[in-house]
């Protein structure tokens, strides 16, 4: 396992070297959280009007991470629109069993990077579109 293939590698010990690197990252996140907290006291997150089951507001939108899916559902029939993310997640989860080829060069990595770039652009575009419409 890991202890075997690392005999020929250049390594650093977890403690104290890697631990201190991770500790500095943690401190960085804590600093960012404190800054968010201070800004939150100046400009709180706030609430909209209280929930009213009998009064649907004009523009109902889900949270930003579901906006892309929401926008997609406006063009695709409901059943298909619901099945796309479910099938997508299942394919994503089982991907290592679909792509088993042993890699010898860096070309597959570049192909995957391109696929990710295109996918992310589409997803972000759909999300922004869902946000403004």
């Amino acid at each position, binding site marked *: *396992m890991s202890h075997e293939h690392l005999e020929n590698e250049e390594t650093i010990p977890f403690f104290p070297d890697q631990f201190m690197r991770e500790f500095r990252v943690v401190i960085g996140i804590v600093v960012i959280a404190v800054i968010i907290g201070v800004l939150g006291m100046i400009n709180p997150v706030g609430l909209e009007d209280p929930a009213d089951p009998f009064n649907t507001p004009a523009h109902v939108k889900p949270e930003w991470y579901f906006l892309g899916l929401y926008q997609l559902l406006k063009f695709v029939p409901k*059943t298909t629109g*619901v099945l796309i993310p479910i099938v997508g997640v299942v394919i994503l*989860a089982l991907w290592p069993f679909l792509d088993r080829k042993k890699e010898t060069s860096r070309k597959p990595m570049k192909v995957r990077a391109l696929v990710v770039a295109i996918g992310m652009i589409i997803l972000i575009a759909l999300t922004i579109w869902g946000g403004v419409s």
Partner: protein
Amino acid sequence: MRKQLGRLPIHGSLQKVFLFSFILTTILLASLTFHVLANQSPPQNQLSASTSAQTPSLTSVEYLLKNSLQPQRSISATLPPPKQDPCLHCHITGENKNLWTPLARWAIFGTMGLIFAFGMYRTGSVILNRKTWKPLTNRTVEWVDERYEISEPLTKVLRKPVPKYALRWFYCLGGITAFLFVVQGVTGIMLAFYYKPTPEAAYASIQFIETQVRFGAAIRAIHHWAANGMIIMCTAHMLRVFIMGAYKNPREMNWVSGVLLLVLTLAFGFTGYLLPWDQRAFWATTVGSEIAGSIPIIGNLALVFLRVGWNVTGETLSRFYALHVIIIPILTVTFMFSHFLMVRRQGVMRPL
């Protein structure tokens, strides 16, 4: 080997001073935070006002000092102290009656006193025994090791080699996600102290948190933005692993547990979003569960399970709260634990 284990990863006394004062300041500030900003002074009724006007305003300490200076009299022979404002038991006359002042005082001066006492003990020990002082960290590790023999497994865990190719910045994304989960847990617990999960009280309890609780608005803002940050970091980590092909044999199950964790993170967001019970939350949940209802075959089951009925009601809020605070956290911790164990066992993949 044992001596090295007990060494702090900080060299230099000045840095140690900074570290300890940083920890001390954090503890003090933490003790000041997150308390309801209600009017702290007790109601001044007629009785207490008249008694405090008549009796001398001494603290019990001053009273004892004054009486103990008299010779041939023990403390037990003195009269009991006169009736006084009970606040003076902990506060000094005339000062602002903040609830945390005595605690802060005990903490600061108590810690200074303890450090001073320890310093005296250490100096005495060095002078009398004429030996270098063995640092406290070394002593603690040796004490534990004598009893539990943890030196070997601890060394194995702490000295685990990390390959140098795993030191680039994009290898931190998973750890950042995990730490953001911890941040969400801590801020979530603090919010849960004051949030009320009923349709009648939820909205008002969040307003209470934002206006009446000390740093409540800050805690809520951190919880809100760290939630978004956690989703972004989780996705970024997944994309990094995907691009680098680190999901391949033998790391398939690690990838599967990772995708599951991503779904759980989105579920966290979905369930947490309803909790403020404002218009946006209510109707976004209605639309969201409507979409779940259009899944073929199990659609109606999913809709009724989520909504606890056919409409979004107070029952829905209770169910989402239980999901958000108990069920999804337990599942997330379980899968994170297995995810970390697998990475630890198999190591980071060597890039081509």
